[in-house]
């Protein structure tokens, strides 16, 4: 435990990292998921197998990649395979333990939107789109989602369902035949949400230090369910903060190295 000052993003990244079990095979996107995955690898989970959708299996980057195509990933990987292979034999093949996604919008059944804000054919904001997210959400044994908690992101109705969580809730995911369990944790800068075992509705189960239930409810675009017994997320330790900041600094130096 530490009383060091830290940002809400650091809290979110560190908590996401903590939830990665050592040895898990982890399909990871760029950005916060990649930072959390590498933080886990550099702290309590050294045997975590990082898989990037560019086809790098067992990547051990010393700095965070800016893109999934960074040379850093293939040079440190146990194996590098083609894109058709990583999606068919590895992801669809059911070999990945944990998928790690960000999102622009999320609904109460942990379905996510990373495609458009507004109407698909006349969007207010055109986002990058699915990439590998649909299949990560569908085929990893388990999925973890991280995003900043606010009303624009936590919405009553998605503008577009890019990647399925629990769809209409209950057993609707299984009925569609998706093999993975679905999202088991949503980690935000305010707390942790987990799906109700039966209804699959996201429920606030842990608050980050200094955050109130009211704050989280206000930042959520639907009437948020709150667990009867609410946990308190442990504050980042100074060890965690120091490893994360070192990683981010190394990364910033490396990415500024050119142009």
């Amino acid at each position, binding site marked *: 435990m530490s009383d060091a000052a830290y940002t809400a993003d650091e809290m979110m990244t560190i908590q996401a990292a903590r939830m990665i079990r050592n040895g898990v095979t982890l399909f990871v996107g760029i950005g916060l998921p990649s930072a959390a995955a590498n933080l886990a690898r550099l702290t309590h989970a050294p045997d975590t197998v990082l898989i990037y959708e560019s086809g790098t299996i067992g990547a051990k980057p010393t700095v965070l990649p*800016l893109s999934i195509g960074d040379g850093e990933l293939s040079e440190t990987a146990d194996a590098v395979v083609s894109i*058709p292979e990583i999606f068919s034999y590895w992801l669809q093949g059911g070999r990945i333990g944990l998928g790690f996604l960000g999102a622009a919008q999320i609904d109460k059944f942990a379905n996510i939107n990373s*495609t458009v804000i507004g109407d698909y054919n006349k969007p207010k904001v055109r986002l990058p*789109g699915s990439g590998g997210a649909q299949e990560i959400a569908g085929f990893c044994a388990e999925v973890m989602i991280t995003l900043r908690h606010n009303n624009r992101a936590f919405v009553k109705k998605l503008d577009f369902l890019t990647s399925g969580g629990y769809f209409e809730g209950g057993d609707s995911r299984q009925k569609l035949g998706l093999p993975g369990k679905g999202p088991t944790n949503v980690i935000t800068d305010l707390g942790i949400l987990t799906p109700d075992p039966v209804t699959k509705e996201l429920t606030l189960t842990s608050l980050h230090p200094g955050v109130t239930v009211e704050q989280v409810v206000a930042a959520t675009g639907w009437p948020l369910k709150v667990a009867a017994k609410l946990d308190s997320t442990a504050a980042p330790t100074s060890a965690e903060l120091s490893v994360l900041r070192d990683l981010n600094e190394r990364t910033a130096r490396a*990415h500024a190295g050119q142009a």
Partner: protein
Amino acid sequence: MTPDLIYDQLIGAGCVKKIIFSWGGNPGVGSLHRLRDAVENGWPHPIEIEEHAHAGMAAAYSAGAANLPFGLLRGYIGTDLVKYNQRIKFINCPFTGVKLAAIPAHRPDVTIIHAQKADRKGNVLMWGVVGVQKEAVLAAKRAIVTVEEIVDDLNAPPNSVVLPSWVLSAVCEVKGGAFPSYAQGYYQRDNAFYKAWDVVARDRETFKAWIDRHVLGTKDFAEFKRSIASFNNEGATSHV
């Protein structure tokens, strides 16, 4: 699959009628602003989009390479993409009844890729993140490969990714041709340029000035690279 900055440049310059893609961003940075401007505001003109997920694109290229009429995958089920892309259909497994997605094979008129080496016969060797490049070449009616260097002997390790000359239409030596991306074993990804591009592309006028000066205003790739080098030295934000 992932339109990189080159697509943003082509779209902004008005050269694109339609894009087929699965992830349209500036990797690690954010938006492709010219793509967004075209889709959101129809500037410089509206473009047609055919949108997939990565796995669907990969399956469609593989199907093209294998001369199958469609690619088969689990996926797309329950998502909104199927409402907007009529080229995603579903079939049932004739043995189990399981519902699977089917995507028509990609058969590009021309595929252009960049690789590391070719030998004098035109056999091409690539390594590192090879992506879907082999499939894109084999699916295409014609394929052009630019390489970092042409050598006497590829010295290809066993089972490496080699494209024999007889599946290619042309091989050209273009040193630095992956710019601003990287060529493993030759140079790194120019991550700073990707970040700088965000500033250039965000604004129509800044973009136009950039493309006029560095692309339309240069006569070949060598001059483009010299022009870009001065751009980099002056700094992205201070200069177009």
